[in-house]
């Protein structure tokens, strides 16, 4: 890539209002500086840093209602959509829980919070040794992650209904099209539910194992069930990704009222806070498991394990990035909304 095209690419990272105001000037100066012997890579890097600052702080952005309204909407989207993108992975990356004694995996009576007896296959139940102090934290942290996931999902559902209602009330150009875009998560969910119902209707009622050979389905329509099962996976993942993209596009295009922006701003702040709490709970879960492994080597304890706990480190990195983006964006949404509410009149 030539230095000129790298500079052009960096300038394209700035917001539209900034490019319109300073773009040509900066392109000229960047050319002068590189002709003067300045490293094109450093000039490009400086421009990219400037682009991040221009986008995050919006300093010098003209006091035009449409610009600040669009900034508020995009900040709300950037504060909420990272959760949609990352949170499902958090639950998947924990996996299923199992308990272990020094003799191996065990079944148990009670709950993972208050165990009473452990039983190794084929052996009589024995009183359960205690969890280590760190291990005792793990089930609570796991529960907290699940609860925070559900609460955030409920908050975002409220935000989504607010968005669709706001678009219906607005004077957005091509309002119906934007409204349909915003409805993508609802349509994806309906498609998932329809496929699940169809799958239940056509799946075999049972399986017979003929000993040595494959399992033989009894009744139902096995081929249709297989096709529907595959389709369900595709629709679930495709619908989830399409929902994120379509809601972002709808948020960009929907010219909604100030009161609706206020609601969206509040949703984005609550989402960012819940997301940060979810990260804290997930970190406590992983640290608890790690410390438990060390404590368990100094006595007789019951230990908790999760099938995908090895994914903890990359997941913490991923979630931390998403939480930072969500936090900064919710702050930008709040500030932009305050600029709007402090008196830029709608055109």
């Amino acid at each position: 890539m030539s230095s000129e095209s790298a500079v052009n690419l960096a300038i394209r990272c700035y917001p539209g209002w900034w490019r319109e105001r300073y773009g040509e000037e900066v392109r000229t100066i960047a050319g002068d500086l590189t002709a003067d012997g300045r490293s094109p890579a450093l000039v490009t890097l400086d421009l990219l840093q400037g682009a991040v600052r221009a986008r995050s702080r919006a300093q010098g952005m003209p006091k035009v209602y449409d610009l600040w309204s669009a900034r508020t909407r995009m900040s709300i989207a950037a504060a909420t959509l990272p959760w949609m993108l990352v949170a499902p992975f958090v639950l998947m990356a924990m996996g299923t829980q199992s308990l272990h004694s020094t003799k191996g995996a065990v079944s148990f009576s009670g709950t993972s919070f208050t165990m009473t007896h452990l039983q190794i296959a084929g052996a009589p139940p024995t009183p359960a040794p205690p969890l280590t102090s760190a291990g005792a934290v793990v089930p609570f942290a796991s529960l907290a992650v699940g609860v925070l996931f559900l609460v955030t999902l409920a908050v975002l559902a409220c935000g989504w209904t607010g968005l669709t209602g706001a678009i219906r009330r607005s004077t957005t150009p091509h309002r119906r099209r934007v409204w349909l875009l915003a409805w993508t998560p609802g349509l994806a969910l309906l498609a998932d539910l329809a496929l699940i119902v169809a799958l239940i209707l056509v799946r075999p009622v049972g399986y017979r194992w003929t000993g040595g050979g494959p399992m033989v389905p009894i009744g139902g329509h096995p081929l249709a069930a297989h096709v529907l099962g595959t389709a369900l996976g595709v629709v679930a993942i495709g619908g989830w990704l399409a929902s994120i993209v379509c809601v972002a596009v709808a948020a960009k295009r929907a010219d909604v009222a100030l009161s609706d922006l206020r609601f969206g701003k509040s949703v984005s702040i609550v989402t960012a806070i819940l997301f940060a709490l979810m990260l804290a709970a997930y970190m406590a879960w992983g640290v608890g498991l790690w410390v438990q492994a060390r404590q368990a080597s100094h006595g007789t304890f019951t230990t908790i394990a999760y099938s995908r706990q090895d994914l903890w480190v990359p997941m913490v990195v991923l979630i931390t990035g998403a939480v930072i983006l969500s936090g900064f964006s919710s702050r930008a949404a709040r500030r932009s909304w305050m600029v709007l509410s402090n008196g830029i009149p709608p055109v």
Partner: protein
Amino acid sequence: MASKRLGRTQDPTIMVLTSLSGGPKHGYAVIKDIETMSGVTFGPGTLYGVLARLEEEGLVESLPSEDHRRPYRLTGAGAAVLRERLEANVKVADIGFRRLGALGA
């Protein structure tokens, strides 16, 4: 080495305002002036971040230009802010030098 570790003490805002106090300049001239004045190398992203903020606050204004090298000049408010900030810096510098003198450093 230690002074480098303690970080940059020059405020980019003050440096841009100081540069423009010598008369209207376009971006490239401001960068070169600051380099000569303080040895600090500004990139275009840093400079225009500062200029955008100063323009928004009414401390500098752009002048018409026929090419893409638009000159900027200090406004009255910008001159007042610069004077106030420099006086504060001078006061701190005076106290610092006096105390260093008392230490015999």
